[in-house]
């Protein structure tokens, strides 16, 4: 009788241990699967993120691995609700300028951009001002206020090229942009030929615009 009892206990313990080990193995497999997906996602994101790199003079500046690659496509709305796609600018040189109403350096840069857009528009150059201001999408009234604030900010800066809202929704394919202003300069074939991060100078911006138009180096 004692022998039978002991066998039952041993069998129960063995089954319990096997079950626990099985659960641990399954959990470990899930862990590895999720970790692999996480690493793949991170690697994909990092591939397009801006990095610090030395220029010809040896000084460090931010550069984007997106330079030389096709510009990621997008469709965004204007504050009036008009849908605007990057694809509709095919054949033109385009500057995508990520800005925000709360961004001081953007306010310094924008008047330069307004002038440069006027100067180079006859050659087939356009600017898209993509606002990254937060939008309260859960509350209709707040959303309307947010959009009105962007429109007012753009008006105060005399922006007369298209203003687009909800820029955060396209920040990821453009390298998880987290500094403003940031601009990407796209040539007539849709390839990013230059990127600038932060406030530079009107001359730098003009140089990049000429590059996008195929006039510079």
């Amino acid at each position, binding site marked *: 009788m004692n022998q039978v009892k*002991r066998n039952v206990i041993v069998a129960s313990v063995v089954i319990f241990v096997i079950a626990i080990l099985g659960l641990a193995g399954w959990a*470990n497999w*899930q*862990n590895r699967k999720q970790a692999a997906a*996480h690493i793949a996602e*991170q690697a994909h994101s990092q591939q397009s993120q801006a990095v610090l790199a030395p220029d010809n003079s040896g000084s460090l500046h931010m550069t984007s691995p997106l330079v030389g690659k096709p510009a990621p496509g997008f469709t965004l709305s204007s504050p009036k609700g008009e849908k605007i796609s990057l694809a509709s600018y095919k054949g033109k040189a385009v500057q995508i300028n990520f800005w925000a109403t709360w961004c*001081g*350096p*953007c306010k310094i840069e924008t008047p330069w951009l307004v002038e440069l857009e006027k100067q180079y528009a006859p050659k087939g150059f356009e600017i898209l001002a993509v606002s990254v201001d937060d939008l309260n999408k859960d509350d209709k009234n707040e959303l309307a206020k947010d959009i009105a604030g962007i429109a007012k900010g753009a008006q105060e800066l005399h922006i007369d090229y298209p203003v687009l809202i909800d820029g955060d929704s396209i920040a990821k394919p453009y390298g998880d942009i987290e500094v403003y202003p940031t601009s990407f300069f796209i040539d007539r074939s849709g390839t990013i030929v230059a990127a600038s991060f932060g406030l*530079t100078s009107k001359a730098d911006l003009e140089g990049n615009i000429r590059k996008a138009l195929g006039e510079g180096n």
Partner: protein
Amino acid sequence: MRLSFLPIALALTSLAIQAPFGNLGDRPAKQPAVTYLYPEQVTITAGKPSPVDLHFKVGEGLHINSHTPRSEELIPTTIKLPETSGVRLAKADFPPGTDFAFSAGPDTPQEKLSVYTGEFIVHAELVATKGEHPVEATLHYQACTNNICMPPHSIPVTIDVIAR
């Protein structure tokens, strides 16, 4: 004798099931522009507004808007306490900002901003019910350097409030 493997099996089992989902999502956190310095714990009188000074530090080369920026488009620095914490923020006196202007060259005169740099103190008054309350307040701010701005951000302000 047959049961002698049991402790070994259980020890192995416990090792195998230790944190099977551990280490997921451990991204290296990006350094926030502002750090909460102290206090980590305060003892106050229950039911009475009690002064607590909250110390913060803005990172080197950065500034954040003060609590009263000079333009309505700019995002002020604010502090918030969760309503369910048993602790109420009766008052928060922010220091006045210092003047700052982005340098855009002599031909581009810039308006002066009101900002915080380095260390700053928020003089708060807390009211708490009797007991120990682990509070996670948040400081909301928007930071810039001399030529770039970063999106608005919030950091946790974790304080253990003991009300007697």
